[in-house]
């Protein structure tokens, strides 16, 4: 970053990110635990057709 920034990033938004990240850590941990439990119960989540990842898969031009 060697030039002045050209839009207001929001100082508050920068400060708030520590709290947001902490909450996100909690959410990710909770989701991981749920996913493990669902895995034990055999409730595996099917990969959705038309999902974000599927749109970049097997792209002949990019492989």
């Amino acid at each position, binding site marked *: 970053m060697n030039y002045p920034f050209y839009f207001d990033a929001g100082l508050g938004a920068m400060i*708030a990110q520590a709290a947001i990240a902490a909450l996100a850590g909690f*959410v*990710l941990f909770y989701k991981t635990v749920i996913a493990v439990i669902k895995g034990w119960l055999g409730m595996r989540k099917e990969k959705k057709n038309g999902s974000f990842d*599927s749109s970049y898969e097997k792209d002949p031009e990019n492989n």
Partner: protein
Amino acid sequence: MLRHPSSYRDPSGFMYKENGLYYRRINPVFFKEYNQAKSEGIYQKLFDKGWLIPHKEISSSDDKIIIQPEQLGFITYPYEWSFTQYKHAAQLTLRIQIFLLENDFSLKDASAFNIAFHKGKAIFIDTLSIEKYKENTPWRALKQFNEHFFGPLLLAQKHGGSFLKTLQYSINGIDLKEVKRQLNFTARFNPIIYSHIHLLSKFQDKNQDETDENKEIHLSKASQIKMLKALEQHIDAMTSVENTEWSSYYNEINYQETSFQIKKELIKEWCRDVNAAKVIDLGGNDGTFAKELLPQTDQIIVSDIDQPAIDQCYLNMLRSKEQKIIPMVCDLMQPSPSIGFHNSERDSFTSRVINFKPDVSMALALIHHITLTGNVPFEMSAAYFAQLSKYLIIEFPDRTDSWVTYILDSKREARHLFDGYNSSAFAKAYQKEFKLIKSEKIQGTERTLFLFERHER
């Protein structure tokens, strides 16, 4: 060198057009960043993933570097995307930022206008947004990301697809306080929504005076990645009720399968006759007819007023890995205007279509809506279509068609105002702008298909 009217915010460089092609000029202030990203293979890795528009370096001197990005056939703006398109554009921005962080780079902004749909999928087009990551700094584009992406998506999920048009009237994104106001009270109990909307909106007015100027704001890279991953997972799981409950329009149409097939065959044949390489299907619904033309055309824009239908078109494309269709939400009675500074940052729908130079415009099962629901006289719709392309394939449902009868009945005592709605009046009005090449009644229906060629100008 004609600078693109929207390319003025970032001092790192700008887009310009020369001899019909787009180029990007990089200013000396950004040379170091650009060369670092290039030498560390960041651009190449993103090209390989299909996430960043590929470019090649054309020239390099002390005062400028010129790169030429792969050219987009047609650009659609965020306010013309369906729910899933919008979601995927948001996810792409976050995935790129996570990838960059893992490689010690970062996105300096997160505008929704940095994304385009190209060859069937979302692609990042603002190459100069990529800069070197400064250790332990928060993501300064987070607020902008929420204003451009997360806010409109949340409101569209809660209140409907019209909120996907937010950037049309608010080009710099929606104020997070406004998003907060329009969400349910219970939304705050979701930690992702609370933190990215409620908390951020509370903090957004905090200014430099209230803090120690010398105090550095720290956020570890690992924490930032966690924050972005949780946000991306939330967006990935978002659904829209109006989209999931959408049922195919073609289940409700008023003609038989054989007539449907006849119509498809006629369209294919007529497009072949006029060597149509580029087509726009106005009111194209979920792309059913556009799909028929795929083997014989290069690019097809499918536009429709119905956001869930366009969403279906996009999802179908993703499933079939189709690259030629460009789906977009557009209400022909109020197509996207030109917006931004000097009304020239983002071009209008009509102007973009004219520049796209389609060989054929298709208006199937559309004219009765424009004429009877929209009250647009035949002369005016003919003049509009004549601007767009040389050839026009248009379907005219007669007064005896059940849909037309239904619309006319709904006019009640004003029904007589539409006495002029008939095939001969239509053909006569259209022949002021076009030459009639052929017309054919679709067997088993009360509809006629016309092929017109625009008069030489």
